[in-house]
């Protein structure tokens, strides 16, 4: 190495520069590595946190799904129970109803039969009493005839020396009593025939009463249908009346709203005129509005706009139905006012004019 090279490499400036360059290089290297490590750690920490969050979310989802499934099963079980109970109740109700109907039928039939038998019995009783009285009468008549013949016989016995013709007369009289007895027996037979005929007649009556019952049933059905028709008309009248009453109430509300709006508009107009006068402005109530128009496109003054706005506000406050509002406020685009929904907010929003 020549003296120039020695001079250079032993130069303290050169040594310093080289030394510091080496140190800088080394420290830069270390710093870069540290920076890279820090960034990697930061990125890893994000990914770890993300994985944790994903796990927690998955856990929450699973738990909520489980809970939902459990509740759903429980609810389905309840619904099935309720439905089974309802079906059972319906069946029981139906069977009870059928039993009851059958019992009522049997009862009705038994009652009918009892009535018929009672009629029969009454008819028979009258018939037999009539025949018994008739027979008794006949019997008393026969007794009378017998006593008469007995007296005549005694009379004839007293006059024993009567001729054979008297005996023959007595025999004729005996024949007559025989004839009476025969007549009585034939009457008895007639009475028995009459009783038989009465029985046959009663059977015919029973048949006739059954036909009457059927006819009565048909009449009852017809009357019931008439009753239902009458009930329908009655219900229609009642609904009509309620509709009329609602209409009347709505009209009364509309009248109230018009009154209140009149008072309000007077106050508002007076105050506005005063305020304008105090500020030195001309009154603007008769100026035409550019933003609103009456129905049919006719122009509207501010006075009219004020009146309509107040009236609509009062009517909406009293819940007057839309058709009444439309009738009294002929304003273009009134549907925007009528469709307005009330919303609750932090700031109070006035009914915006203009």
């Amino acid at each position: 190495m020549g003296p120039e090279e020695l001079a250079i490499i032993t130069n303290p400036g050169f040594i310093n520069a080289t030394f510091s360059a080496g140190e800088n290089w080394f420290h830069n290297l270390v710093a870069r590595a540290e920076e890279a490590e820090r960034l990697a750690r930061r990125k890893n920490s994000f990914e770890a946190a993300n994985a944790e969050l994903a796990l927690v979310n998955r856990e929450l989802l699973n738990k909520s799904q489980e809970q939902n499934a459990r509740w759903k099963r429980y609810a389905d079980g309840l619904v099935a129970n309720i439905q089974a109970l309802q079906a059972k109740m319906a069946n029981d109700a139906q069977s009870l109803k059928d039993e009851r109907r059958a019992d009522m039928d049997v009862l009705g039939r038994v009652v009918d039969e009892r009535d018929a038998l009672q009629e029969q019995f009454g008819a028979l009783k009258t018939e037999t009493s009539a025949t018994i009285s008739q027979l008794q009468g006949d019997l008393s008549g026969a007794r009378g005839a017998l006593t008469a013949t007995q007296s005549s016989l005694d009379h004839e016995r007293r006059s024993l020396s009567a001729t054979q013709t008297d005996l023959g007369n007595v025999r004729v009289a005996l024949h007559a009593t025989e004839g009476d007895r025969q007549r009585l027996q034939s009457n008895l037979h007639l009475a028995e025939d009459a009783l038989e005929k009465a029985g046959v007649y009663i059977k015919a009556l029973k048949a006739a009463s059954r036909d009457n019952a059927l006819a009565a049933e048909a009449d009852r059905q017809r009357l019931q249908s008439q009753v239902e028709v009458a009930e329908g008309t009655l219900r229609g009248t009642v609904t009509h009346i309620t509709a009329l009453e609602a209409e009347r109430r709505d009209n009364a509300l509309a009248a109230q709203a018009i009154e209140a709006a009149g008072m309000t508009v007077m106050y508002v107009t007076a105050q506005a005129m005063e305020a304008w006068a105090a500020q030195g402005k001309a009154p603007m109530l008769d100026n035409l509005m550019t933003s609103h128009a009456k129905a049919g496109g006719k122009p509207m003054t501010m006075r009219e706009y004020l009146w309509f706005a107040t009236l609509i506000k009062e009517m909406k406050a009293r819940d007057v139905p839309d058709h009444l509002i439309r009738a009294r406020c002929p304003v273009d685009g009134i549907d925007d006012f009528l469709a307005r929904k009330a919303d609750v907010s932090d700031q109070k929003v006035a009914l915006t004019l203009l």
Partner: protein
Amino acid sequence: MTEIINLNRAIQHRSRMSVFVGYLTVDWRCYAFAAETKRECMRQIALFICEMDEMHRADMRDYPEVAALRPYWYSGVVASNDICRIASLAEINPDHLDAMFVDAIDVYLVDPDVRITSHAIPVVVPVHGVDFGNALYAALIESESGIAGYVSTTKEAASVWMVEYVRDQMNMTVPQAERQLRNWSHGFLDVVPLRLSPNLQTVVTLASLTPTSV
């Protein structure tokens, strides 16, 4: 019962309009209401309470965890029957109106969960100021002698009045008064925008129109 006293010796504007002003303090904020009649003013206050009730219920339904943050309407207010009656358009006997209103709100003052801390029955206050904007402003000061208030159409006029009032009451200069206002420890002090009833809002909006903007 509190009264709003108007001390208006300094400013000589002839006020043409008078309104009824009442206020309700909820969660240390003052909400003041103005209307054309006392009944209407009470109705506005009652409607505000019903609004709080509705917002309270909507929040309970949608965000039950917001209970921890407790905005002013999340204060457990429930609109009682009397409040609902005052908030409706029903006619109430004027002799019983005051007592009914005070009784209805006393219930809330006693309840520790409800944030309503004070109220004022509506009284007549003249409106100062000639130039109408879209709203009215009220300056309210509470001190040992009571509550004083001033209603005007501009916020600046109300602030100016407040400074002059303090200056007159405490016999200070204006800068001293301003400093005192910043460190006011005697009670409530604020300039609030008034919530107007619908008719009053219509009047104020109409009054602020100019012929070109019709």
